[in-house]
């Protein structure tokens, strides 16, 4: 495929991605930080629904032989350390590498600084990679999936996990209905309980 065709497809796919991120409000720092403080579960709902849909899509595409899987190589140290740093960054940025772009599109100013820091971080990694490679980025069991671990074909496993996730999502929605998590300003911020001894805020109570 030519680079120009790939860019055109990427822009179209990204536009759908950005639309879904904005409309679902998961690009909001309040939603992401709220998820990490276990107060708001919108992010988990969107994330697990996207994973479930992906499992079903790939069960069909891979099961019918239309697509090969592209799992990333498992590197225990790099996956754990990198994942931990990624999580720390996500909490402080109130964004993931993809939702930063949605924040910029929606108008948040600080997202430009997150983007600049991210470009510098990725570039710093490109410089550090030869040093990190022997320490963290070599060895490991390779591109393994649970299909390799269990010896089962991918598609029935994927369908099984998708069913488990759907059950989990149904339970999550019963526990925390999504409409109550959007917040009055659609930014995931929910009315805070008044501090002990304060006058009750009747307006907030009514909105909650």
């Amino acid at each position: 495929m030519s680079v120009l065709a790939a860019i055109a497809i990427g822009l179209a796919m990204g536009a759908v991605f950005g639309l879904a991120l904005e409309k679902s409000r998961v690009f909001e720092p309040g939603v992401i930080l709220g998820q990490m403080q276990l107060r708001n579960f919108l992010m988990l709902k969107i994330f697990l629904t996207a994973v479930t849909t992906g499992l079903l899509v790939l069960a069909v595409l891979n099961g019918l032989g239309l697509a090969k899987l592209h799992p990333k190589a498992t590197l225990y140290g790099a996956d754990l350390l990198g994942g931990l740093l990624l999580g720390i960054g996500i909490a402080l940025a109130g964004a993931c590498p993809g939702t930063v772009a949605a924040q910029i599109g929606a108008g948040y100013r600080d997202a430009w600084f997150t983007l600049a820091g991210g470009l510098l971080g990725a570039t710093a990694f490109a410089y550090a990679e030869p040093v990190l490679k022997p320490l963290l980025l070599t060895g490991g069991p390779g591109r393994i999936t649970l299909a390799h671990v269990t010896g089962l074909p991918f598609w029935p496993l994927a369908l099984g996990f998708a069913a488990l996730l759907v059950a989990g999502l149904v339970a999550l929605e019963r526990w925390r209905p999504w409409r109550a998590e959007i917040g009055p300003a659609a930014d995931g911020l929910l009315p805070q309980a008044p501090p002990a001894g304060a006058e009750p805020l009747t307006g907030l109570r009514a909105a909650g």
Partner: protein
Amino acid sequence: MPSLTDRAWSPYFAGILIGLLQIPAFLLLDTALGTSSSYVTVGASLAAFADPGLAAMDYAAKHLSGAKNWWQVAVVAGIALGALLSARLSGMRRHGISPVWTRALGSPSTARRFALAFAAGFIMLAGARIADGCTSGHGISGMAQLAVGSILAVTAMFAGGIATAFLLRRV
């Protein structure tokens, strides 16, 4: 039926839409949905102006050219365009910074927030590159392929995120 002028969509509808993006990714590009390696493509392209030697380093060189790398950059640019369009259609354009930061940091200072956002972006992408993926590549795509490393990375990501978030003020 969800409309483009809605303020908010169901997280389940939006999640399905995002998951369906794997169809063009796997069938047209023969790759999985991801975003964080585009930061290397753009960052290294810019840095190579100042330091042409960077383009000769293996890791940077692998990210500088080719349809898949620029496809991913286009995806991230498309995310910004899609969010801009969506926010305009619903009258939900944002200005300044989110009020969540006054709650979480205990200060309305934008300068303080900008500095923290820059540092956070650096840590986030350094981590994503060490792990070779982010919430999209490891999260949405890796988990959908039941990749062992992705399940580990996502677990570590939530552990790091939750531990850090609890050090901030409650939002």
